[in-house]
């Protein structure tokens, strides 16, 4: 049962990957990039442009380019970028540490803030704390990621620096291996930006799920047995309230990518998101296709992990 569930999920994942890469090439089929002319220079003769096109493989029909992309990707080769002939695999690997640093730290904060504030809100239902947390969650829920990033940059980085308290630098990324303390300092605001925006729906979701569970009979039974409220909330209620939260997590992993792209742009972190934007502006098809393929694979893998974890937690899911 479990095995067929996993196989089905992986099957869907493969279809999504095929669709995502096909879509990238389809977009460039509709509007082919004029990369060859840009590379050859304005003065170039048509012959030179044709030569550049031939070298990049742009003279072939787009479906041939696609098939050769798939063929090479299956062999672990993502091709070379149009402008500097750097292997796309190398570009991805170089941008990866910054993105991973951002994503891992932000995800921890995201779930921590989301679940904890939701539980506190539900445990103190209809108090000032509850109202405050619910209100804050709604504000961050309505806040575009880039706006929060800008506001944090302005108030926490710039204003504090002017006031003589330069705790938060204004962006860029320092590798962990180079200087761990600076790595942390540079990532605090990006983590906060991404985590607060992502956490908001989780506060609402956890709160609603907790309130729902707290109304169930077995909670009343546990309370009437004389168990302390704290024990009931954290041991009995939370465990069951986390089920809908886990489902939502599977859906939101994809959302994370959008947040990463925006956060990296605002804080000028040279990760995958910013690299993708730059490549899109330059119409560097191999780099775009490579990053979309990589990002989709990561999302699908994360989705499958969440689904499988959920199926383990809740046996009812496996039946469907």
């Amino acid at each position, binding site marked *: 049962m479990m095995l067929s569930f996993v196989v089905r999920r992986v099957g869907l994942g493969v279809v999504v990957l095929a669709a995502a890469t096909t879509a990238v090439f389809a977009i460039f089929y509709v*509007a082919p990039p004029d990369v060859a002319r840009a590379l050859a220079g304005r003065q170039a003769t048509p012959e030179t442009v044709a030569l550049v096109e031939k070298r990049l493989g742009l003279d072939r029909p787009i479906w041939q380019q696609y098939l050769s992309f798939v063929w090479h990707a299956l062999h672990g080769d993502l091709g070379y970028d149009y402008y500097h002939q750097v292997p796309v695999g190398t570009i991805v690997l170089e941008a990866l540490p910054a993105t991973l640093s951002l994503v891992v730290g932000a995800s921890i904060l995201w779930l921590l803030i989301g679940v904890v504030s939701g539980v506190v809100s539900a445990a103190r239902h209809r108090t000032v704390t509850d109202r405050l947390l619910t209100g804050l969650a709604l504000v961050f829920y309505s806040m575009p990621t880039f706006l929060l990033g800008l506001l944090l940059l302005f108030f926490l980085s710039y204003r504090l620096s002017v006031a003589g308290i330069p705790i938060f630098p204004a962006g860029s990324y320092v590798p962990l291996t180079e200087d761990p303390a600076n790595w942390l300092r540079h990532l605090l605001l990006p983590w906060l930006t991404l985590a607060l925006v992502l956490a908001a729906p989780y506060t609402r979701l956890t709160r609603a799920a907790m309130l729902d569970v707290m109304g169930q009979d077995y909670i009343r039974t546990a309370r009437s047995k004389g168990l302390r409220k704290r024990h009931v909330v954290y041991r009995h209620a939370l465990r069951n309230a986390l089920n809908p939260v886990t489902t939502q997590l599977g859906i939101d992993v994809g959302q994370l990518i959008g947040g990463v792209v925006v956060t990296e742009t605002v804080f000028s972190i040279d990760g995958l998101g910013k690299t993708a934007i730059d490549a899109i502006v330059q119409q560097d098809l191999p780099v775009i296709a490579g990053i979309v393929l990589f990002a989709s694979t990561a999302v699908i893998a994360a989705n499958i992990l969440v689904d499988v974890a959920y199926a383990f937690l809740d046996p009812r899911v496996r039946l469907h």
Partner: protein
Amino acid sequence: MRECVEPSGPWRMVWKQLRRDWVAVGAAVVILAIVGLAVCAPLVAQVTRHGVDTQYRTTGLTADGLPRPPSREFWLGTDDLGRDVLVRIAYGARTSLLVGVAATGMAVAIGLVAGLVAGYFGGAVDTVVARLVDLVLSLPFLLFAIALVSVTGPGLAIVIVVIGAFSWASVARIVRGLVLSIREREYVEAARALGASSWRILRVAVLPNIAGPVLVYTTLLIPTVIVAEATLSFLGLGAPPPTPTWGAMLNEAVHYYQVAWWYVVFPGAALLVTTLAFNLLGDGIRDAVAGADR
């Protein structure tokens, strides 16, 4: 004399509940104010006597060529080209609301049809729609939106289409789930036993019963769409300049936040207040619909 008790329909119940919710009413008032601002944008331009794209290079910029702070002449300050921030925010409201309503309308129309057909008829159609929904929800939206806009060139229409094309899937998923549960109810069975056509059953039995949740989701989709538009504009891929949009204003403001706080804060506040109001109203309608069901 016996007083006649008029049976109140479900929508009247929702309306009654909603009217008592002062947060939702306040949110609705704010939304109306923003709609008013958008509609009256030319009036704002007239009152301030500042054109939306006019660059006041002498009065609107400091000697160093920097934006000017809020003053009697420019109530919300000027931007880096010496344009009136207030007038541009008013015209920007038009862009945000237009995209918000148009893309949401497109998403709900497609999602409603796809969800109804998939949920009601089931079978192969359902499988195809459900897989398509899974697929769309799995694609990294922002990367695809950026790639699409970068090859088509920026424009308002393409922004609406791209956002709509990615947003219908969640509507379809919700509608399908609702229809699946309603399809098995006794009154649908009764209608079918009486020989009603599928079209009539959908119209008379199914649609009225999913209208509430769909309305709630529609209200909550508008702020999501507005954020998506602002994000694309912020990344330089929204409506092309000099079209005033809140996202594009913030994109330019990034380089000036150290010298011109008003350039960041006012467009940002306009954006946040709008999305917040729609979310509050959506929450209010949801509570009212749930209350009316009880």
